[in-house]
């Protein structure tokens, strides 16, 4: 659990990178970190030389400028050094990660496969159901309420398929294989906490695969102590807490509950500001809060006027939980046909 506590440190959400919950994400983070150290060294070194020159060679000091160029190989060495280091980054860090990202899909029998179909402005997900086979889809069966992906009701493979809108359910600790496409414009399937991003392009289907760290289930994340954050009501603005909910009940002096456990501050600024004011008036200086749902799938490619709202909730389970979720969903879907 210690690993998880570090990984899911939502208290630091936004201070640097979002917590990384995928097995492979660490390599990406490591490369980004190395790159930034490298950049900092270059910039600081260069900057010191730059400022030194400005001070030492200012015209106020008098004298005349040197006509003959300064000799020295330092700059050549620096340039060659930069080039070599870049090559190391490319060959040693970037290419292995990308190669794994692209060339090494998990075997079909070991992976959990799901299709993600982008649409203005929602993510539709399609699971193959217990038979492991996806049903055929066709545009003419599309129905915006119960069959957004156009599953063919006559295809036996599709009878047990699961469709969800705006909610992605995944198990932890198993390879996940998402096949990404789009119904209309280009979207981009992105889960910041998993370091996964892939454009969803109409007319083609591109897979990505990743694995969620053991233990990083939604239930665990919500229990994780580090996710609770004390928010100082006197200072907090509504934007910062709009997706958070209270971790316990908060009552005013007369004992009336003004912010119940699991309740949010409010999704509109008006409501949110009012609630914060109410809390302050009740003498509550700080509250314990955590995200209502810690994981999101978002769209990373401009797809229209509500692009910013295009997101899906991601729920992660251990194996038993995932099976339970599937059981609870499958019959429902079948009934609809």
């Amino acid at each position, binding site marked *: 659990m210690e690993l998880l506590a570090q990984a899911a440190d939502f208290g630091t959400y*936004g201070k640097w990178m979002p917590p990384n919950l995928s097995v492979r994400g660490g390599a990406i983070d490591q490369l980004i970190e190395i790159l930034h150290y490298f950049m900092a060294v270059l910039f600081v070194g260069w900057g010191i030389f*730059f400022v030194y020159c400005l001070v030492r060679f200012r015209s106020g000091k008098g004298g005349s400028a*040197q006509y003959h160029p300064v000799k020295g190989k330092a700059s050549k060495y620096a340039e060659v050094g930069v080039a070599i280091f870049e090559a190391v980054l490319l060959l040693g860090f970037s290419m292995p990660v990308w190669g794994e990202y692209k060339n090494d899909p998990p075997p079909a029998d070991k992976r959990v496969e799901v299709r993600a179909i982008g649409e203005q402005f929602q993510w539709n997900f399609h699971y193959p159901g217990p038979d492991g086979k996806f049903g055929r889809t066709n545009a003419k069966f599309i129905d915006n309420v119960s069959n957004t992906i156009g599953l063919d009701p006559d295809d036996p493979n599709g009878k047990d398929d699961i469709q969800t809108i705006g909610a992605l359910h995944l198990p932890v600790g198993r390879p996940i294989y998402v096949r990404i496409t789009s119904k209309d414009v280009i979207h981009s399937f992105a889960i910041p906490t998993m370091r996964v991003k892939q454009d969803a392009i109409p007319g083609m289907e591109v897979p990505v695969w990743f694995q969620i760290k053991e233990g990083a289930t939604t239930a665990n994340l919500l229990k994780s102590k580090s996710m609770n954050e004390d928010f100082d009501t006197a200072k907090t603005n509504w*934007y910062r807490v709009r997706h958070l909910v209270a971790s316990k009940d908060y009552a005013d002096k007369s004992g009336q509950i003004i912010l119940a456990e699991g309740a949010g501050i409010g999704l509109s600024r008006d409501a949110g500001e009012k609630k914060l004011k109410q809390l302050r008036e009740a003498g509550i200086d700080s509250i314990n809060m955590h995200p209502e749902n810690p994981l999101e799938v978002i769209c990373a490619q401009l797809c229209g006027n509500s692009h910013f709202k295009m997101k899906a909730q991601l729920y992660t389970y251990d194996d038993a939980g995932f099976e339970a979720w599937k059981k609870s969903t499958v019959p429902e879907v079948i009934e609809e046909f």
Partner: protein
Amino acid sequence: MSDHSHELPFWKKYIFSVDHKVIGIQYTVTALLFLAFGFGLMLVMRYQLAYPNQPLPGVFASVLSEPVVGEVTVNEATGETGKVLTGDGYNAFGAMHGTIMVFLAIVPLAVGGFGNFVLPLQCGAPDMAFPRLNMASYWTYLCGGILMLFGFFVKGGAANSGWTSYPPLSLIATTGQTIWLLGMVILITSSLLGSVNFIVTAVQLRVQGLSFFRLPFFVWAQLVTSFLLLLAFPPLEAAGLLQLMDRVAGTSFFDPGGLIISGVERNSAGGGSPLLWQHLFWFLAHPEVYVLILPGLGIIAEVIANNTRKPLWGYKSLVYSAIFLGFMSFIVWAHHMYLTGMGTTLSTFFQATTMIISVPSVIILTCLVISLWGARIRFNTPMLFALSFLPMFAIGGLTGLPLGLTASDIHLHDTYYVIGHFHYVVAPGTIFAMFAGVYYWYPKASGRMMNEWLGRIHWFGSFVFINAVFMPFFFLGMAGVLRRQFDQTETLHGAAVQGLTVMATWGAIGLALAQIPFVINFFWSMFAGQRVGANPWKATTLEWTAPSPPPHGNFDAVPVVARGPYEYSVPGESEDFSMQATA
């Protein structure tokens, strides 16, 4: 040579002029106006980002109308309403901000403005090789620009699919997109006319003694830029035509077929490829980055050489680097497309070329900074802008590394990190170079100096605030906040870092205020600036041989060049500068 100019009527001398200096000034003024307009669009967007869905302040609310803004109730009790930007309005502003800044402001300023004014002078030429083509280029640019702006007035508002106009989104967008495409085709035509003119002038019209390696670095930068424009722009023109056909003639170049738009199948033959647009677009748009930055580097080199009072360090490396940079910029374009499903072979090629292209940039920056060694640095306004350009351009360049490597790009792609990266190259980079250029060549164009103290205030304010705008972007990007989001607080990680966005917005407001001294200075100096002679900066290159302002035909006598461009502090000379032209 110049005694005929007074015979020209006013409109021929100042409006439909064929004189490269007048055209250069026309370009500069027009481009600065577009720059201000694009900046204004950005301010509205930044307000929305910092205070999502809050009524816009009075200035903006009074100018903006449907469909860019919508009414909201501010106070339910009194029924008071206010105007907020709509999602479509935000996207339209975003797309137009990008288009205007790149194609209507910076390129015309850097190439059309400075290139036109300075390049023939530095070559010792009486004018451009094709003066009337030059005039046609400016008027085509102006028509294209006005057409672009006209997009705001058609039904549905201006183009709102991003400045990259990715189909299929752009195929189903409102009429504004058609206007955008037409505007682009016209602007590209203007650029092509200009680039042909520049190349011929720089190659054929150099005066006697001015060999290629005696050309000022600015001319080299313009020459390389012109080749980029000449060869990279036509594919975008073709792509624009194809998208136009997709929108108006029912073709399906970028439509794979079977698209379900809001539940209805789009009627088309299908068979197209959305990625084809991205290839054609980025084939231009990557060289375009160097079109934006190379003229800036050229200006910086001139200003630094002049104010360090010594020759540029590694002049030949600078020239070769610029040429290599130009060449390489054609073969890195697909690094914008890593996440479209690109495999390992192509991505390796494009990662490698991307890493290689960073080397000449490093060399250029190194040469410029080593030029400071052993100098006698004069800290005047152009030099302050030029010096602050260097570290900010370095930041812009360095932050390109994590984006050029596929693995780190997975997390950073399409986030504010990208915005921070290219704005550091273009805004604190190129725009600072442009300001340096305006202060540096203003006395040549007008015969009067700009006020030094107003200039320094302008520089200080701009330097502080431009970093306040763009530095938070890197942190936003790290946190995973995506670009082109109307309201980043809709996502969990976006809401967590809203404070940084607020900071950037206030930086932008400060940056706007910091430009006031510049505007005052620009107009005030036109009438009241200190009068100067031909060579107020004690510079060496040929433009300082001509009178200030130069008459039609430029030089009183055709100059003959005897030495290289940056012969400052030559031992044994009585002055610390030796001009290129023999007296």
